[in-house]
């Protein structure tokens, strides 16, 4: 029963020529029906390649799908479901697929034996990169990517079930039916677009009707069960820990259709049943790679499923299963008959047998036996075991994870009846009733292993990478006798089919060469994915702008209306500066923002700083454990700067903490460290001091917070803060904090904090009022020419004040290095205290933060320069430290910098070199105090 709808023709183009296939065809079946023989070229020798298989085992028919300039390479023609208007091209040839100039390699093949490139190309030394490698690289690769962005969208999803059944052949279908009827939550996934597996490709009967009908009826009943989810065109590509399976569902092969082309499913299954069937393997004999040499099972698939009768076929088989192929000639290795040569460069013409006979034939059907698809049982480093009777590797039930069963051909039960027996057995094991066993064929395979024909001519094992039996024997001769060494030396099984048809044949050839048994030779490691998965599918929607989420501040809308240029700060977008008409560059804006803030008043959104509510009777005691200075003594209504260390004694983060009540602190962190600090505080709370009454919750997004800085800051705030709150310097001094209301009763908080060094407050309201507050502040600020300032101006001002920021808290600097050694309380322990006393962290000659200023004012400083003492050679041993922050100070009309200098505290006044090779900017600088502007901090306390 063919599954192709002959009255639904589909037009497609292959290598520029128009062809016609039908609904239900794959590109491969359509090409075979149209008599196309050569569809590609092999990797090394560029020999002509024809279609060899019918599904994922295909090594030869790799094509590119094209659609308006976008190209998808390396697609197996056997797995492309034909659609109207498909445009495909063959790959890997210089010139046409029928006249490939690179076929010269086939003539030079004696010089291109396995691993030849390791033994040559070494003389003269420069030639490798200049000559030899460019040639190799240009000729390498298979299909090509267009440089255009992948237009397709991909989705990701998550599925949960009791049992995941992998493979929709007879074994999988019956298992899903039994479990479905028992009410289990079942997912049945199969790679093909029609469920049925081998039933669709043979002429079996089940219950004396066509097996295709049985498959269709079973699928129909499964569709009526709400607890069963059928997933055709879904490949389970990987087994991961704790019942997690990776699946890829293909919705369409068309490029840039609307909606996702593929969905990457993460399946959580309590149990999985692997019913993935088996893959037929070829036999290695001289010139067995001619177009027309195919797997016997594939020839039957094209005949029974697609209605394509490939005439005058010679069958080479070592087992009874192969005999199901109708062929004009039968060559049975069990009767000591085998093939010694095949002629026909672009298609089989004659077949020479060991008894001297020569047959005319167009196709050779080869059956070297079947390999159970054990891959998924080995993704957690298990290894399959050799079954002598069936001459194949089977899943090793000892190393199988308990939540994974294997049935059917994947477990060596090659017959339909055998599959049904195992399906019933696993169904009972999983709590379902066994179905009444359908009547089905139960023919034994009767295989006598026959791997390869020795001889002078090349006999192919890996058709795609051109690995021949001689290569494997040469590898052994050179000492590469482990199966892993043979794979790497010859590239056996490293092609796009990952050795599905070549690995077992290859290691059988190796076993013979090393006089070891096949089990002793063993297999290489099976790694995910079972079938290749597009990188686009793993990325899903997280590309382009959606690579990471975007976090917006409460004043984002207002800022974008008023000329803000935004900058990424982690996932936040913050205003970097506010460009005004007539300003030529960013420096104009930033200088204006700094000067206006220092002369009148500037407003900056500081919501992105991490804010953590710390509440509880022991909140003060807890903060003493995480900060170097003491917080339990902080009075209510006061704030205090705190430095937090890692347990290794190095500075982790800093920020101010305000005490709003006896049991309520609000701690702030730098924007970048909000997440890590919260995680660290929860670690200290839960893992070190679980008996403390202290509780944490993040309030970063809850409160919108704005810094209002400058000589007119108080005047502006008095127009917004409700009158009953006195914010004069006496009533509300530096480092004070209070809860209050603004604009006639809106709840707010006010902190007397300054990062810019000016008289400054930070005012915060619940985020729902953030947008309204910034507009109100700017409206009330018009009389003072209030401006918004961005992160750039903030940066300039904090550098002018010598405040450490992210560049200085870079994870390698100590409290002493930051000039905060005196801050560390002597009386109490805290995280990091002990290890901060290690000799190399406290010695004289360690790095200390200093200010630097160019000796002649016109010079520009560049960040990232290294400090070298005057007169020393500019080499690593003389490296004295590095520049960490640089800014043009409109206040001092000069570049200024912060940096770390060996023994820096003692070297103020010294002139040293700031050396920046990368930006070719070597400048003499003078070491000064980091506090460039208002060193005594008088403006803060006005």
């Amino acid at each position, binding site marked *: 029963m063919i599954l192709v709808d002959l009255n639904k023709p589909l037009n497609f183009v292959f290598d520029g020529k128009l062809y016609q296939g039908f609904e239900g065809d794959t590109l491969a079946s359509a090409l075979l029906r149209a008599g196309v023989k050569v569809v590609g070229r092999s990797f090394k020798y560029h020999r002509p390649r024809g279609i060899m298989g019918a599904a994922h085992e295909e090594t030869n028919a790799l094509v590119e799908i094209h659609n308006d300039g976008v190209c998808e390479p390396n697609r197996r023609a056997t797995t492309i479901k034909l659609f109207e208007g498909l445009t495909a091209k063959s790959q890997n040839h210089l010139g046409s697929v029928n006249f490939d100039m690179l076929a010269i390699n086939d003539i030079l093949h004696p010089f291109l034996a396995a691993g030849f490139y*390791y033994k040559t190309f070494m003389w003269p030394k420069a030639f490798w990169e200049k000559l030899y490698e460019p040639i190799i690289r240009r000729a390498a690769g298979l299909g090509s990517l267009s440089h255009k962005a992948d237009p397709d969208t991909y989705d990701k999803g998550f599925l949960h079930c009791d049992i995941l059944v992998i493979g929709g052949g007879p074994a999988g279908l019956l298992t899903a039916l039994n479990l479905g009827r028992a009410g289990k939550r079942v997912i049945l996934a199969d790679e093909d677009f029609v469920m049925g597996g081998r039933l669709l490709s043979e002429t079996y009967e089940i219950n004396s009707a066509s097996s295709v009908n049985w498959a269709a009826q079973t699928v129909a009943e499964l569709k009526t069960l709400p607890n069963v989810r059928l997933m055709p065109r879904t490949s389970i590509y990987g087994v991961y820990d704790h019942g997690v399976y990776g699946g890829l569902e293909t919705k369409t092969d068309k490029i840039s259709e609307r909606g996702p082309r593929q969905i990457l499913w993460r399946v959580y299954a309590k149990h999985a049943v692997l019913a993935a069937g088996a893959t037929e393997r070829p036999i290695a004999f001289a010139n067995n790679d001619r177009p027309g040499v195919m797997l016997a099972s594939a020839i039957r698939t094209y005949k029974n499923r697609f209605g394509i009768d490939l005439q005058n076929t010679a069958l080479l088989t070592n087992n009874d299963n192969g005999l199901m192929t109708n062929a004009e000639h039968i060559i049975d290795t069990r009767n000591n008959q085998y093939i010694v040569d095949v002629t026909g460069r672009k298609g089989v013409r004659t077949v020479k047998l060991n008894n001297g006979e020569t047959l005319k034939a167009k196709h050779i059907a080869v059956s070297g036996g079947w390999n159970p698809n054990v891959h998924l049982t080995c993704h957690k480093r298990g290894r399959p075991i050799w079954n002598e009777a069936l001459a194949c590797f089977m899943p090793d039930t000892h190393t199988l994870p308990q939540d994974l069963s294997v049935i059917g051909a994947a477990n060596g039960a090659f017959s339909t009846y055998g599959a049904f027996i195992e399906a019933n057995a696993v169904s009972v094991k999983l709590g379902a009733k066994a179905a009444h066993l359908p009547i089905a064929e139960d023919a034994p395979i009767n295989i006598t292993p026959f791997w390869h024909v020795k001889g002078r001519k090349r006999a192919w094992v890996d058709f795609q990478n051109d690995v021949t039996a001689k290569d494997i024997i040469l590898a052994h001769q050179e000492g590469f006798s482990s199966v892993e060494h043979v794979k790497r030396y010859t590239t056996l099984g490293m092609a796009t089919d990952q050795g599905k048809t070549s690995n077992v044949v290859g290691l059988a050839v190796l076993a013979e060469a090393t006089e070891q048994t096949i089990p002793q030779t063993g297999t290489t490691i099976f790694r995910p994915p079972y079938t290749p998965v597009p990188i686009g599918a793993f990325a899903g929607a997280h590309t382009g702008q959606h690579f990471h989420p975007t976090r917006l501040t409460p004043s984002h809308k207002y800022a974008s209306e008023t000329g803000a240029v935004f900058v990424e700060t982690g996932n936040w977008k913050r205003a970097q500066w506010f460009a005004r008409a007539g300003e030529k560059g960013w420096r104009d804006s930033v200088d204006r923002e700094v000067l206006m803030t220092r002369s009148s008043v500037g407003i900056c959104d500081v919501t992105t700083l991490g804010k953590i509510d710390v509440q509880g009777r022991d909140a003060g005691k807890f903060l003493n454990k995480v900060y170097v200075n003491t917080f339990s003594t902080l009075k209510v209504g006061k704030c205090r700067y705190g430095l937090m260390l890692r347990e290794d004694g190095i500075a982790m983060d800093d920020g101010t903490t305000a005490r709003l009540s006896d049991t309520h602190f609000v701690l702030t962190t730098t924007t970048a460290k909000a997440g890590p600090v919260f995680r660290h505080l929860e670690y200290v709370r839960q893992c070190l001091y679980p008996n403390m009454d202290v509780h944490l919750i993040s309030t970063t997004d809850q409160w919108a917070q704005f810094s209002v800085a400058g000589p007119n800051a108080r005047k502006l705030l008095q127009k917004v803060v409700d009158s009953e709150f006195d914010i004069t310097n006496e009533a509300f001094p530096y480092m004070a904090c209070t809860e209050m209301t603004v604009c006639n009763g809106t709840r707010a908080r006010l902190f007397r904090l300054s990062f810019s060094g000016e008289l400054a407050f930070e005012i915060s309201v619940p985020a729902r009022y953030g947008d309204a507050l910034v507009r109100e502040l700017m409206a009330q600020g018009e009389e003072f020419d209030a401006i918004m300032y961005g992160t750039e101006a903030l940066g300039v001002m904090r550098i002018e004040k010598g405040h450490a920021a992210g560049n200085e808290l870079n994870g390698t600097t100590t409290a002493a290095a930051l000039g905060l050694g005196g801050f560390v309380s002597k009386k109490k322990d805290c995280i990091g205290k002990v290890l901060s006393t290690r000799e190399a962290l406290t010695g004289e000659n360690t790095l200390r933060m200093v200010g630097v200023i160019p000796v002649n004012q016109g010079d520009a400083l560049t960040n990232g320069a290294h400090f070298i003492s005057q007169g020393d050679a500019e080499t690593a041993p003389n490296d004295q430290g590095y520049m960490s922050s640089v800014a043009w100070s409109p206040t001092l009309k000069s570049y200024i910098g912060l940096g770390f200098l060996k023994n820096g505290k003692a070297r103020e006044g010294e002139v040293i070199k700031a*050396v920046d090779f990368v930006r070719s900017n070597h400048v003499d600088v003078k070491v000064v105090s980091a506090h460039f502007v208002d060193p005594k901090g008088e403006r803060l306390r006005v």
Partner: protein
Amino acid sequence: MSYSAFRIFKEAITGHKGWKPVWRKPEPQLNYDIIIVGGGGHGLATAHYLASKFDKKRIAVLEKGWIGGGNVGRNTTIIRSNYLLNDNEGFYEFSLKLWEGLEQDVNYNAMVSQRGVLNLYHSDPQRDAYVRRGNAMILNGADAKLLKADAVRSLYPFLNFDDARFPIMGGLLQPRGGTVRHDAVAWGYAHAADKRGVDIIENCEVTGFDIQNGCCVGVETSRGYIGASKIGVAVAGNSSRVMAMAGIRLPIESHVLQAFVSEGLKPLLDGVITYGAGHFYVSQSDKGGLVFGGDIDGYNTYAQRGNLPVVEDVCEGGMSLMPMIGKARILRMWGGNVDMSMDGSPIIDKTDIKGLYFNGGWCYGGFKATPASGYSFAHLLATDTPHDTAKAYRMDRFTRGLMIDEKGMGAQPNLH
């Protein structure tokens, strides 16, 4: 037997009969002067340099499986010397110089290709951090260039310049960085060491140390007892397990680093690119596959296999940087067992047990360090003094506060 184009021509005509094993398969002797535990890149390189540069004899390399079966056979093949701290940069620059002469030194083509390593940056602070690193490279004799966005665009026009969440602002290029055919490194060193009489003994697992009053005089192995006056351990991800047999605890955790290769593609990418705003770095092998990776999974493991979140994280980074690779398919995913140290830098030092030396803590940077690690471990074993470029890699640096912390992430291995 030496290899050359001439030898290939001669053997081709005579049906390749004359090729000999690349290294012998000797039986272990009763004792040696020096035993190297671990037949990976570092162990084999140590043996080669002991024999060739320090004229040492009676050396054995003991490998529990097949040589080159560990991380040297399973990495993204990148070589570079673009480190920030002087304690590291001198060592990796020394390694890069050794790479440049490797083929001629070991007479085996490991395909050392210096087509450039480009670290992209996406913000001003990140640019300045790369500038500081570039200057450190030049101070140590390496090469570094800062490229602006348009220079990067001319090199790699297919990168995402128009629709990026974190715009590409430029990159720090090390022109002499590049890639090496990793398997050939193990085979090349094995070939050269073997030629100088080093016994390379595979399927020989060390199961215990023979320590008599504080002195290590031999090892128990799956193939019998072997004595030696000096024993150097270079077993990467198995460092803690092996040194525990000598009662030594290490500042090391074993983690899995996943790497990926795509199906073969026509040439796209000449050099190595690292993404500064996500976990993704990529190069294209001579056979045409995109070889790429990102971060470690992040939990202790010896399983040499990873889980899905990192695969998705790496591909999200890859697609955001190069939207064209969506249509390239991942062909194979590995997991290697990497020895992550407490500050992200290695240890090449004696131990408290006389005669027992340790080389480990290579995190995910061990491949590029192979030649210098081998050379400086040989120097230490031969002269009992650290090699000049490796003098900072002391075991006691953590007690003294001399951590070598490139990223400033502190004593948490999975953050390096």
